[in-house]
């Protein structure tokens, strides 16, 4: 074929050459006008939430809340278009690899996520290594803002020991013979260790202590052991879908209401999945859509979520939204996408909620925020409205300091930026 063909008076350029020319032109023009090219590039935030596995039912709500937070800002940060790049968490190793991919290939300026504590710990290591601001929005294991802390990683969930201690006044009167049923990973072990320490202080007795592999579908054999041990209380440390399976089978064996069950840091979706006929227990949760003390911003979020998804906002949706909101406010406050500036803005971020100063502790980047002790209603009116709020804790600034501890109590050794 000739380089130029003429047909009906029109000059035809070979298609490959034409495309090559366009590409070369685009490259040259981008070199000539770097500011315009950069302005067209959106600011990217990386989101790491599981798309499969037992935690995915919580992760869906975390993801929805995160995206809603950016939509409320018209998908803009620093006056530029912004977008969230969502990647999976299949295992701790894969979660770490995906974090690297988001940083190196997608050029994200910050990370959000960590649906499970062991995923969050893997991602935290990457955030520290690559010096990328990261807020863990679901992991509750103590190590995240404890022994494994780094200056780039912040965390929303109160650590397991804080939530366990807040729960104790509601459990002590039930009895002192406790059975532990916890998942064999960081979160489950933290729960078991924390409550064992509290039980020891209270002079109680451990009548059973089973570690359950993550992803266990059938709990009947565990339930038979618990029934045989006749404890006063069962302390659960199961995660998401596993908790749903357990509660369902707990009811099947006629145990619901006979032996009280409790767990901390549960998600509304875990209990909604079980069905209102099967649920019982006392739990801690960070947020409840019907909490009368919700702030106006929280209420606006709940309305926006209800409008968009035609169902009430789960606590996990709020956690995704709240964490993203903090990150976006920090980026805007920093007036920059530079990591150190965002980290500094996060450390200075604060707001007042329920008379408490919500902020990140400087010594471990742990958010100090109130959370709720909730009990399942005796008569659940519909498929969503499961809880009565028993308490909002900590109830005062002094109680908050006591609950979250001080720099002297922390095992986190924060390095310089």
């Amino acid at each position, binding site marked *: 074929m000739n380089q130029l063909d003429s047909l009906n008076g029109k000059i035809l350029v070979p298609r490959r050459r034409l495309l090559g020319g366009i590409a070369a032109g685009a490259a040259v023009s981008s070199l000539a006008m770097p500011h315009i090219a950069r302005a067209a590039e959106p600011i990217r935030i990386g989101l790491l939430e599981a798309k499969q596995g037992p935690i995915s*039912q919580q992760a869906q709500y975390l993801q929805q809340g995160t995206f809603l937070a950016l939509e409320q800002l018209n998908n803009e940060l620093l006056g530029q278009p912004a977008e969230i790049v969502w990647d999976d968490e299949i295992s701790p190793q894969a979660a770490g690899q995906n974090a690297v991919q988001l940083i190196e290939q997608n050029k994200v300026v910050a990370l959000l996520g960590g649906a499970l504590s062991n995923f969050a710990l893997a991602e935290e290591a990457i955030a520290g290594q690559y010096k990328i601001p990261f807020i863990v929005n679901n992991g509750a294991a103590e190590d995240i803002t404890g022994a494994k802390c780094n200056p780039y990683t912040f965390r929303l969930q109160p650590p397991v020991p804080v939530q366990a201690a807040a729960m104790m006044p509601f459990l002590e009167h039930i009895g002192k013979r406790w059975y532990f049923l916890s998942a*064999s990973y960081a979160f489950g072990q933290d729960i078991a260790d924390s409550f064992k320490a509290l039980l020891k202080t209270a002079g109680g007795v451990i009548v059973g202590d089973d570690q359950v592999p993550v992803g266990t579908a*059938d709990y009947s054999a565990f339930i*038979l052991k618990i029934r045989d041990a006749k404890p006063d209380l069962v302390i659960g440390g199961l995660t998401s*879908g596993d908790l749903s399976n357990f509660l369902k089978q707990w009811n*099947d064996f006629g145990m619901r209401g006979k032996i009280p069950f409790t767990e901390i840091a549960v998600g509304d979706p875990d209990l*909604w999945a079980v069905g209102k006929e099967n649920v019982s227990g006392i739990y801690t949760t960070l947020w409840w859509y019907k909490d009368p003390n919700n702030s106006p911003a929280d209420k606006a979020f709940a309305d926006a979520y209800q409008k968009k998804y035609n169902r009430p906002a789960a606590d996990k949706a709020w956690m995704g939204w709240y964490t993203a909101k903090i990150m976006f406010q920090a980026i805007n406050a920093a007036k920059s996408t530079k990591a150190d500036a965002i980290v500094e803005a996060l450390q200075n971020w604060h707001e007042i909620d329920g008379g408490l100063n919500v902020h990140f502790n400087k010594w471990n980047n742990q958010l100090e925020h109130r959370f709720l002790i909730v009990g399942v209603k005796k008569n659940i009116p519909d*498929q969503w409205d499961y809880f009565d709020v028993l308490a909002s804790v900590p109830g005062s600034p002094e109680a908050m300091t006591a609950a979250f501890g001080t720099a002297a109590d922390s095992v986190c050794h924060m390095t310089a930026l």
Partner: protein
Amino acid sequence: MLDMMVMQAGNGLALGFLYVLIALGLSIIFGLLGIVNFAHGVFFALGAYFSVTMFGVMGWWGVPVAMVIVTIIGMLTEFLLIRRLYDKDPLVSLIVTFAFSLLAEAVIRTIWGPEGQPFNAPDALSNVIIFGPFVMATYRLAVMLLAMVILASLWAFLNYTKFGRILRAGSRDPGMVGLLGINLPRVLTGTFGLGCLLAAIAGVLAAPLWTVTPSMGTAAIMPAFVIVTIGGLGSYMGAVVAGLLVGLVQSLTIQFYPEASAAAMYVLMALILLVRPRGLFGEQWERFE
């Protein structure tokens, strides 16, 4: 302690019967089609999901309808995808069905969402039977009895019906069955449908026991593969015995060493394969040697 062990054994048998139903479909499909169907768990999950959906539409009458729907989906899958794998290396069928399982799980997640779907046993079966120190959830006992009836019916179907005999003959020498003038492709479609029906029945029975989630098929497929391997690939009796054995071993491991409950069936498999490399009831099949 003896009471607990007997109780755990009874409970393990109930779980084992559910495993048998899942594994049997897998075994039948492998036996006749020579396909290592990694997507078998998908049909288990679909059985549970369609029973939830059809129950909402038609009440309990919707449950058998759900099984029929899954069987039809299975037959369509065989017609559109699986039959293209018959003359391929077994590794290809493993990879393709694995990819199909991922795709199908994503489709389930898109249609029904990743959150669990609540589904309960009928009210008449939502209680427990207590006999001295022994306790058993009535629904689990019903699952066990129903599974026995299904297994007996299937055995009679395979041994005493014309289609059953064709199916068994085809599992040994599909070429000869074709030469006898039997429409083998139609038999293969029917067989795959039968395997999917068994998975769907297991999914329907599991829906009130386990939370209905997109990944429930993944949780079911590994025990099913272990059972088929322990029992001997393609062996009916092997799948039954191995399923019950795995249920028993899991329950008893939870009693004594709960941390190892997930690993127990793999240890059992390793031990049995050391002694009998073809599994408990595995035979030498010329077409697979």
